[in-house]
């Protein structure tokens, strides 16, 4: 299995562990519906994904995942408070135009918000930037700066600071080592490659 696919699988498994069976799940930036398809199979969730791209919506339809083509913030505004049991923002948060608005809105329409992101504070990422002096490129971030969407290099420390400042409660966290497999509890901002959070208000 290629490393990236393996990492993706780990990501899915952890989120899958956190998701309660037979609940209503919203996936922001659902892509081709891989995660929701997996959650539908393993947890029988009633899922809806949001994405901007027509072809990704077609891919969702193909695998039986319901999806919505459009802006995630505008979409969430159509729903009453706590309509979804869980909103998932997996490897999306770093690309959002207005992350504060999206996270706060997700915490309104969802009972729980799951956020997963690559930790740019991970020591390898720090060293890569220090020694190469170039935009971070690795198995996950494969593209040059000019061929990728703008992305915020968010770190674990940044994210937890944000949650504290906004009064968002961290209900659960998972910090994973560089292999995205073994837990890394000590000095996560330096030693963890990937971070997952369950947030509530």
């Amino acid at each position: 299995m290629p490393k990236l696919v393996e990492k993706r699988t780990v990501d899915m498994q952890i989120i899958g562990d956190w998701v309660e069976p037979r609940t209503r799940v919203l996936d922001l930036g659902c892509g081709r519906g891989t995660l929701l398809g997996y959650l539908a199979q393993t947890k029988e969730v009633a899922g809806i994904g949001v994405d901007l791209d027509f072809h990704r919506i077609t891919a969702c339809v193909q695998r039986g995942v319901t999806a919505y083509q459009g802006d995630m913030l505008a979409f969430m505004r159509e729903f009453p408070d706590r309509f979804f049991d869980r909103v998932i923002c997996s490897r999306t948060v770093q690309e959002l135009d207005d992350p504060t608005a999206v996270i706060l809105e997700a915490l309104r329409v969802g009972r729980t918000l799951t956020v997963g992101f690559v930790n740019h504070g991970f020591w390898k990422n720090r060293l890569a930037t220090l020694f190469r002096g170039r935009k971070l490129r690795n198995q996950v971030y494969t593209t040059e700066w000019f061929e990728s969407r703008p992305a915020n290099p968010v770190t674990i420390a940044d994210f937890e600071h944000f949650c504290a400042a906004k009064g968002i409660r961290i209900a659960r966290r998972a910090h994973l080592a560089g292999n995205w497999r073994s837990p890394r509890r000590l000095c996560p901002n330096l030693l963890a490659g990937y971070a997952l959070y369950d947030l509530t208000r």
Partner: protein
Amino acid sequence: MPDLDDVPAGAPAVADPGSVGVVASRDFVHAAPFTFQSGQSLPGFTLRYETYGELNAARDNAILICHALSGDHHCAGRHATDDRKPGWWDNLIGPGKAVDTRRFFVICSNCLGGCVGSTGPSSVNPATGRPYGIAFPFVTIRDMVRAQKLLLDHLGVATLHAAIGGSMGGMQVLQWGIEYPGFVRRLLAMATTSREGAQAIAFNEVGRQAIMQDPAWNQGDYVREAGPRTGLAIARMMAHITYVSDASMDRKFGRRKKGTANGDAYTFDIQFEVESYLRHQGQSFINRFDANSYLYITRALDQFDLAHAYGSVETAFAPVQAETLVVGFTSDWLFPPEQNRAIVHALLRAGKRATYAELATDLGHDSFLLESEDLYALVRSFLEREAAVLVDFSI
């Protein structure tokens, strides 16, 4: 609303393996009283329809196609090998196409109140021996759907694999999911709305006024050949503009002058190609459409408001069991993307399975008839995927 006059003429059906070939229309006669939503009734009615493909042994592979305001039951194939144009959705329906007639039994009927073989205001009232005219009962989208259900029962269809339609056809599709929730498994609605808005009603009213102000309309009492042809042609010219877009019209005609124009700008004769085109649209429409049907069907569109009819859109969608796919088109200004999105919002709020996809086109409302591999792939995925992940969204 399908623009029958714009369907490109293709090769004869015999040479096209993707075509359903030569097809014939049939008539379904419902010989029992039918009461309309208005409370008015008819002693019976006829629906003209076509079918393509075969109904399977389980009688569950049927797909109903619902046509738009000016469309009819002839949506695929040709009536004769030398027909210039195939049915209005021939690009979507046929062997191996997105709606695959090797797999599905496809049915399309001319709507109740129509004028292409189905009972409508131009049909003869047995009580008077003359056309009903405006004595015909007021028709609603729900009446059209209830009549279609009687046809499907007659054809022995046990359940519908899908109901598909654009524009007014999309309204019927939504109504199908509400009216017969256990009967239809997939709803595919394009370029449509759950509530005819003020702008769309306004356009319809201008069309109706053009007809009703034509002295030949005569309170709806006319013989088909001598009806309000001027009024109906103007109604069609105006409506046609609402089916396309600024960009598509400008690309097609620009400011090009008609070849025969003599260069004198100071006349009211046809100068621009777009004028000539619209006049042609109007003229060809009056030869195939009845003015009273136009009044009745546009009124049915105006009356369509699920929120008003059921208290709220969510309440309207409460009984829906089918999975829904709504497709909007960016340049559609008759039923704009927001109105298509709103359908999906309401379905999801009602706890239903619904997907929204949007195609970027500049062809306006008629985009749903577009020859687009992207659209075909989406439709095929929606129709052919094996059983949906069966989870009740309303937990």
